[in-house]
């Protein structure tokens, strides 16, 4: 057994001449478009002007500070972070309600999902924004919070939620976004719960598990493994959809980019740069999720 040689290497996949030709054609196509744009459009590219809106040197404080675009990106990251958590929580509860025994809870969650899925996101956000911002927030006293109090105006708060003065604005956008995306997560969670074989439910009931324990110990862990890929997709969609929140004046990346593009008139540079920022953010998220999936996949392989 020890005398057997190690395996010879398998042939590597290389790019063939045909692949290079294909690349060449794509590059040529892009070059052609760029050349046409330059030829037809009399456009004065000015990247430094737009880069100045990412960060600028503050003469008074003698240090670099975030300018509009970076501030917007940070707000978008905050929206993505809290939005993901909030949407996951709502989606989890609603998804469970969709499958539970109580008819009332099933009707409530079903209505929620159907309402949101059948209204354009923009319309939903307008309706909801004017409802929350103009009715609910004053009713629960959020409008009257002292934004200068040390409870609110501290570093931790600023890192988590941004400028305290803009907090109610941020919060209404966040809730809109989370409620909207959670409807889709609800359906993913429902499908995950229903994908767990009947035998697993029955075995859990047969040993006398309480309904809570059955869900927490048996059903959710198995469902989660199955729904990780669509869930990852939905979270990335959430980041991209956060751009819509700009229409209710939440000062996130798209909103501030609109201002920068308007004031500098450097429309192309601004939007190309902002596109790159969104891409980086979404790609990072996808990368993290792919790693999570691989880890879940490893333990799942062990189990099957």
């Amino acid at each position, binding site marked *: 057994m020890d005398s057997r040689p190690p395996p010879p290497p398998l042939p590597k996949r290389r790019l063939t001449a045909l692949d290079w030709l294909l690349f060449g054609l794509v590059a040529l196509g892009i070059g052609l478009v760029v050349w046409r744009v330059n030829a037809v459009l009399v456009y004065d590219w000015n990247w430094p002007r737009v880069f100045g809106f990412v960060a600028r040197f503050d003469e008074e404080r003698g240090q670099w500070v975030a300018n509009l675009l970076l501030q917007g990106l940070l707000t978008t990251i905050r929206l993505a972070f809290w939005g993901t958590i909030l949407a996951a929580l709502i989606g989890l509860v609603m998804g469970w309600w969709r499958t539970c025994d109580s008819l009332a809870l099933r009707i409530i969650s079903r209505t929620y999902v159907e309402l949101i899925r059948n209204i354009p996101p923009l319309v939903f956000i307008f309706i909801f924004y004017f409802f929350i911002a103009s009715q609910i927030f004053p009713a629960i006293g959020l409008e009257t919070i002292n934004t200068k109090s040390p409870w609110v105006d501290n570093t931790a708060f600023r890192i988590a939620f941004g400028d305290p003065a803009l907090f109610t604005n941020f919060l209404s956008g966040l809730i809109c976004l989370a409620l909207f995306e959670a409807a889709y997560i609800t359906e993913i969670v429902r499908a995950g719960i229903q994908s767990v074989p009947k035998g697993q439910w*029955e*075995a859990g009931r*047969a*040993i*006398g598990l309480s309904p809570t324990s059955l869900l927490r*110990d048996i059903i959710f862990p198995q469902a989660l493994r199955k729904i990780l890929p669509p869930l990852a997709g939905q979270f990335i969609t959430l980041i991209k959809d956060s751009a819509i929140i700009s229409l209710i004046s939440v000062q996130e990346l798209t909103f501030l980019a609109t201002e920068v593009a308007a004031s500098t008139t450097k429309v192309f540079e601004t939007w190309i740069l902002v596109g790159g920022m969104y891409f980086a953010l979404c790609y990072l998220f996808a990368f993290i999720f792919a790693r999570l999936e691989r880890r879940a996949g490893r333990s799942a392989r062990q189990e099957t």
Partner: protein
Amino acid sequence: MSETPLVEITGLCKWFGEFSALWDINLSVMRGEKVVICGPSGSGKSTLIRCINQLEEHQKGSIRVDGQEVRPGMKGIEKIRREVGMVFQSFNLFAHMSVLDNLTLGPVRNRGMAPAEARELAMSYLEKVRIAEQAAKYPAQLSGGQQQRVAIARALCMQPKLMLFDEPTSALDPEMIAGVLEVMEGLARDGMTMIVVTHEMGFARRVADRVVFMDKGEIVETAPPEAFFGAPRTARAAEFLSQLLAH
């Protein structure tokens, strides 16, 4: 020894939609008794034992387990289920948990047992079903016979008063069956009350106090195993047995 039966079923009827799956079932099982249920496919054997722990809800009649009435949609059904172990044809081990975790979940969650104590209990039952060395593996890494023995150990970990078996060997390869039946026979010797749906005649002869023959949702005949397998009283049972032997 003339106390109340552990399981007392009277006038039990069960429908699936319009279809009558069980009709006027009367059956009492005393403590320590072993009852084998057999009958053709679709005769309602599974439905009957699944009504006992309310995996199926019945519409009419009464089921009492250890003196307590079992009603559809009742509160506290979990308490009764903890006294009633069940073993399924398709094992139904929790796929995302190791063998050991499969066993300890019930005692820890339902009885509030300390994890270390539960592990000890679990290992003792794994020993009993002769599979202790597989404790760290996942269900999918075990053979069918091993999985079924783990499933039996999982049910025993709740230290039930009654064990229900629904065709525990019919999904197994022939060479796996003996090991599972051996474990069940050992359990019978220890005095467990058992209701077993099976077509294993040898097992029924060795273990059963009574054989219950069902057809079309009714109990057609009840007899000791020698009498039933030797000379069935009803034509339907005779026909069923001749088909079973033809295999």
